[in-house]
């Protein structure tokens, strides 16, 4: 299999601090890669550089064979990469449906004429979008699918996580970046959320996932490869069992004995 995402020597400096230091990382199409490492090891920075929120200082990123290193976040999303955030970034005053429309931005018509003057296509598109959004949310939580027109501020944390994942999934990305989906959730809730994501993945076929996670049981269960970061560098790569045995990984997490 060829790599869907291929990063070479990716670096990002903040002043004198190298948050990412020459990272080489590849994910095969359809794979689930776990990205682990102690706090501050550069995991979220990697997502931010990948999605264009921070420009890379050095290095190259190719997605589906095309260079995307210097693209703006908007273009990265349009190329087929969608993400969730470590701290929820839903628009809370808006309805759940509105939030999902934001996730589906690239597939909606934003022309002035179709939005303000001749709105027949808009109405059809809204109906279709609502049906699609309900179908997706139903996989995660059937009762939630009937609450699409309620404000996102009114639903509990776990549902907000689900909606955030749905917002990333609804545009049918080829690569999904999950930044600590378990943050603020119980073990059981995390297990359910990951099961639902796997279910969507099997429905969508080719979806590829990179997962940042501190909950090692989740990493062990769902990923087929892991990359371990420390101080912005890759210190180990392999299956979970392999990296868990790696002495440098143990050292990074537990310190020198």
């Amino acid at each position, binding site marked *: 299999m060829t790599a869907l995402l291929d990063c070479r020597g990716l670096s990002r400096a903040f002043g004198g601090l190298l948050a990412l230091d020459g990272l080489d990382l590849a994910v095969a199409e359809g794979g689930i890669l776990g990205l682990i490492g102690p706090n501050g090891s550069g995991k979220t920075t990697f997502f931010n550089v990948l*999605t264009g929120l921070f420009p890379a200082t050095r290095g190259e990123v190719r997605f589906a064979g095309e260079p995307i290193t210097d693209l*703006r*976040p*908007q273009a990265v999303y349009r190329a087929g990469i969608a993400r969730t955030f470590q701290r929820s970034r839903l628009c809370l005053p808006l309805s759940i*449906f*509105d939030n999902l429309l934001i996730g589906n931005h690239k597939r909606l018509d934003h022309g*002035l004429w179709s939005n303000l003057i001749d709105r027949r296509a808009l109405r059809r598109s809204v109906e279709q979008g609502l049906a699609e959004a309900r179908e997706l949310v139903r996989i995660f939580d059937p009762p939630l699918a009937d609450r699409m027109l309620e404000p996102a501020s009114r639903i509990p944390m776990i549902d907000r996580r689900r909606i955030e994942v749905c917002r990333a999934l609804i545009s049918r990305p080829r690569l999904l970046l999950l930044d600590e989906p378990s943050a603020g959730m119980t073990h059981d809730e995390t297990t359910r959320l990951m099961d639902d994501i796997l279910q969507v993945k099997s429905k969508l076929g080719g979806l590829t996932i990179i997962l940042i996670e501190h909950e090692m049981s989740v990493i062990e269960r769902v990923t087929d490869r892991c990359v371990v970061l420390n101080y912005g560098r890759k210190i180990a790569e392999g299956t979970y069992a392999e990296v868990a045995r790696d002495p440098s990984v143990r050292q990074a997490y537990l310190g020198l004995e």
Partner: protein
Amino acid sequence: MKERLLGVALAAAAAGFLVLLLRAESEKSIAALIAVAVAAAVAAVRLRLTARFRPALAIVAVAAVSLALHEDDFSLLLLARALIVVLACLGLNIQFGYAGVVNFAGATFFGVGGYTAAVLARGTGIPHLLVLFLGGAAAAIAGTILVVPVLRTRGHYAALVTIAFALLFRTFFEVNDSLGGPQGLKLPEMRIGPLHFNDPIELGSFFGSFYLKYIALSLLFAALGFALVLRLERSFIGVALDCIRLDETAAASFGIDIARGKITAFTLGNFLTGVAGALSAFMVGFIAPNNYSFGESLILVSILLLGGVGSPWGLPLASAIVLLLPEKLQVIQEYRFLLFAVMVILILLFRPSGLVPRPLRKLA
């Protein structure tokens, strides 16, 4: 379809009622008609028709009030002014309420529309209806000067940039002799086709103030502005603008072009404010830099805050309070800025979403 038929039927009934009311001569029949109106209003509220047919009801209400006061020039002038200010604030509402772009130069864009109308109406033979739209276009174009700083700054800094712009433009009006300098400019009478706007109305036995024509025109433009703003809110553009206001990082991560959204909102808003300014200039017949001071910009912003940022239906209520109250209560005239300041502070403290808070968007 059913909704529309019902709406048309209601509007027809209301129009018929108005004709009856105007034709009514004896006190008894007038009292009976008023009783019918009250009963109908109660029934409408009970059947929840008020929410569904709010636009039609608002138009009928303005029409009823202005016909009832058809010879009272001063009250009609106030009503027309309130309608024009609603239109101007609809523009600010797109900027503040949807895209989150602050604009403390509302009166300046109002003024650009007014000066454009004055210059074009004095110097050219362009039809006056078109001049109104050109006033809006000129305000939108003047706004492009501010686009770069508006995109680069946020919060307080953006506010300062627009304030600086407002002061700059006012000085520009003042020192520019071809624009009349501090004395300002007089406008010729407004004409649309055969209609002369400054002649009183004589229709058979009906005599009405010439302000009725300005009210009709302002009402038409305010209604068009409302239609535009409500459609904008209930569209994919509206969703994208809300996301830009609430979280730019999330917006960028989902492909929303932040610069495009802000420019669209800023330009569209300035256009509405400019049209309102042109209309106001024609109605007043005279413009001077003093009418477009920073204080006037603050009044527009306080109307927006009072009504509820992002909530167009709050604007008629808020502009009625801010514009009509000081005229009716002459005592507070001198302290009106103080009063508005207190009002805005109280609103921000106790009811931050305004008198008529913005409802949740119902796209589907």
